[in-house]
């Protein structure tokens, strides 16, 4: 990997993606072989927003490589509460750690922070911006289940504010994929993402109803529509209800459709889907560990086997 910092999925080439995914597959096949790889390495965790999966899987990944983490803790208990700037916080913490993981509620925060530090910095979500490590584990899951050739993927839910969607859509321009975007009109892709997809010559279609394309899909990537995106509760319920799936909905899908979700879900995927062969979202979440181990190993100077 040529990148010091991982800020956006846009910076990842097909070769970068394959390198991380191949390395992750090697790690997943024999995790014990990597157990002491980064003894004495400390990963600085700067989470300005709540996180369960991303934070825990980065922690697990660093520990499984033999290293450890130093954690800023919650914003409430840190000096940020006293008004410290992000630029100052990262400059202080880079003195404690060998690499940094940052989640922050504002777009562009990871890019700005990376300009102030010399240690590698990973964007673990910047507002409605990007979430490139989620994308790598999403791609790993897609490659495992559906492959990257002649792929038809539907991405559904909150496409406007969903950073996992923005990162994934960019990254999919590197593979042979047709992307279908399914959302209410008010939550369609932002202009900047459309612009990039257009520039990349990506094959993109937008829909307001899943029925229109469900039977064609190899992968359905579902995201959560958040209550706070709507002016009132009734409008939210009406709209969100149209983008929920259950095992009955999936009767119209291909037998080998892969259903993914970055989690947490609320009610957009009914629990009766969990028992079907379509459900890959827990596997997807578990893949976060080998993928983040691979990324950290490559960033911290490990060579692929």
């Amino acid at each position, binding site marked *: 990997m040529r990148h010091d910092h991982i800020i956006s999925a846009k910076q990842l080439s097909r070769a970068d993606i394959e390198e991380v995914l191949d390395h992750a597959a090697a790690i997943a096949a024999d995790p014990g072989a990597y157990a002491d790889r980064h003894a004495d390495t400390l990963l600085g965790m700067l989470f300005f927003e709540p996180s369960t999966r991303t934070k825990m899987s980065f922690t697990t990944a660093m520990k499984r490589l033999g290293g450890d983490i130093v954690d800023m803790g919650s914003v409430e208990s840190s000096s940020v509460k006293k008004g410290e*700037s*992000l*630029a100052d916080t990262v400059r202080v913490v880079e003195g404690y750690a060998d690499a940094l993981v940052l989640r*922050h*509620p*504002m*777009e*562009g*925060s990871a*890019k*700005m922070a990376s*300009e102030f530090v010399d240690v590698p910095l990973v964007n673990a979500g*910047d*507002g*409605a*911006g990007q979430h490139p490590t989620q994308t790598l584990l999403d791609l790993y899951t897609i490659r495992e289940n559906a492959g990257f050739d002649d792929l038809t993927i539907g991405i559904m839910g909150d496409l406007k504010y969903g950073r996992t969607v923005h990162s994934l859509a960019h990254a999919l321009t590197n593979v042979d994929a047709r992307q279908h975007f399914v959302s209410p009109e008010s939550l369609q892709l932002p*202009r*900047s*993402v459309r*612009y*990039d997809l257009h520039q990349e010559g990506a094959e993109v279609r937008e829909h307001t109803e899943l029925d229109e394309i469900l039977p064609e899909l190899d992968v359905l990537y579902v995201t959560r529509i958040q209550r706070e995106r709507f002016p009132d509760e009734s409008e939210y319920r009406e709209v969100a209800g149209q983008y929920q799936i259950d095992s009955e909905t999936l009767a119209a899908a291909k037998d080998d459709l892969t259903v993914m979700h970055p989690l947490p879900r609320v009610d957009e995927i009914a629990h009766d889907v969990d028992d079907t062969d379509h459900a890959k979202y827990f596997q997807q979440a578990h893949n976060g560990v080998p993928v983040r181990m691979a990324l950290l190993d490559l960033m911290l100077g490990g060579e692929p086997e």
Partner: protein
Amino acid sequence: MTDDDQQLRVSKIRNGTVIDHITGGQALNVLAILGIDGTSGESVSVAMNMPSDRLGKKDIVKVEGKELSQNEVDVLSLIAPAASINIVRDYEVIEKHRVERPSVVEGVLECPNHNCITTEDEPVQSRFAVVEDGVRCEYCDTIIRDNLPAHILAD
């Protein structure tokens, strides 16, 4: 009738800047970029929609006692890519050059995305890449296509 004949209709200035070949209809936006609203007393002449061989229609702005900063020229080039800037001293044009479209404008425009880190109290300047049909925030990716002068940072 030539361009020069047209320019004579507006009185000459002694010291200052003449911005010629502004895209027709953009003169008031050029004044906005320069922060000129007439209240500070400088003498300003504006000619709009004058015939032009090169542009069809062009605007001209003459401002007494003002020379442009690089930032002002950069933003100007985005709304008037064919503009030429004439610096006048003692009624003579001592320097004349065309604006060049920059690849990046830094510290001039404010990102319209209120959730962009550059709008916070951080030690960072706004930075926009100039793209095909507008500018794009290099931090949050927001694209501005229309009404650039409205996004000029207040001093």
